[in-house]
């Protein structure tokens, strides 16, 4: 029989409660898992199937740990959305912007991607693009750590390009309703901006986020927990 207490202790490691309180929670949860497992065996389920089914009751230990912490402390210091999206997203944005500024100041000049060497398609900072997968991975990981869903993990990862997207989308609006910006902004410039500041960096951020997403999705599988 699996050592349910050991499994719960491992899953809840890092739970910030007093020693006695933590022990009480561990004992209670381990008891619940043990009873579930025994009941499933009595129903005729095989041992491995019973273990899998029992562990499905605690598929996301991070989420469980966080919820127990809040419930026992009686307060939520930050809203879920703040921790799962805004904070990781803003951190990723700050990091990517900081790196961009450094590369613009000290790094090589930007590279102009062109079609057949004639039509410019986008202006790209190659060193920045090479660093963006790490930023995307960080955004996704921080969101996951705070219990974020896959959607929030991906949103946090691509967060750094969203301000660029917003400002590009605002250009046509400004052209229609005012003259805040130069009238010589053509469609080609918008496409170039979209490519160089949104699509390519977005793809680089996603390239970093997807392995994180894949890794933690696999880890959530109850079979992955060692007994």
């Amino acid at each position, binding site marked *: 029989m699996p050592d349910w207490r050991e499994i719960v202790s491992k899953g809840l490691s890092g739970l910030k409660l007093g020693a006695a309180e933590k022990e009480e929670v561990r004992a*209670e949860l381990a*008891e619940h898992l043990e009873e579930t497992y025994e009941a499933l065996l009595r129903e005729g389920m095989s041992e491995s199937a019973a273990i899998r089914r029992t562990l499905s009751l*605690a*598929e996301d230990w991070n989420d469980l740990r966080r*919820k127990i912490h809040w*419930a*026992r402390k009686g307060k939520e210091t930050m809203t879920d959305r703040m921790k799962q999206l805004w904070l990781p997203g803003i951190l990723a944005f700050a990091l990517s912007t900081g790196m961009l500024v450094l590369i613009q100041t000290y790094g090589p000049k930007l590279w102009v991607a062109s079609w057949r060497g004639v039509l410019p398609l986008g202006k790209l900072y190659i060193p920045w693009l090479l660093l963006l997968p790490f930023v995307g991975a960080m955004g996704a990981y921080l969101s996951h750590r705070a219990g974020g869903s896959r959607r929030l993990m991906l949103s946090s990862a691509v967060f750094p390009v969203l301000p660029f997207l917003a400002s590009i989308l605002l250009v046509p609006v400004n052209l229609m309703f005012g003259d805040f910006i130069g009238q010589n902004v053509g469609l080609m410039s918008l496409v170039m901006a979209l490519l160089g500041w949104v699509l390519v960096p977005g793809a680089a951020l996603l390239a970093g986020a997807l392995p994180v997403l894949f890794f933690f999705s696999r880890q959530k599988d109850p079979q992955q927990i060692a007994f």
Partner: protein
Amino acid sequence: MIGTGIKRGTAELAILSVLEEGPLHGYEMARRIEEQTKGALRFTLAALYPMLYRMEQRGWIRGAWETSQSGRRKRCYRLTPAGKKKLSPLRKEWAELFGALKRLTKVAHA
């Protein structure tokens, strides 16, 4: 997808309702809810225990360690007078909500 507020509300009602029948520990509570709702409501640990701890802090239920006949220690929860008082308006609120939704869907299908 059902929103967090609705899920929390239904979970509170489910827990208070089964505890009205008598004191129960976590596993037994989850099992009864699953049985009585014919499997429609299934509590994971992340849904059940944080909810129990929160309800305990609000004073609706009270948990205490007890030793069963088999010698196992289990934390049993009981409904407090405040919990009993909460149950009735909660039932009424949900009955009203479901009644309204039922009427709405009937009108929509008419």
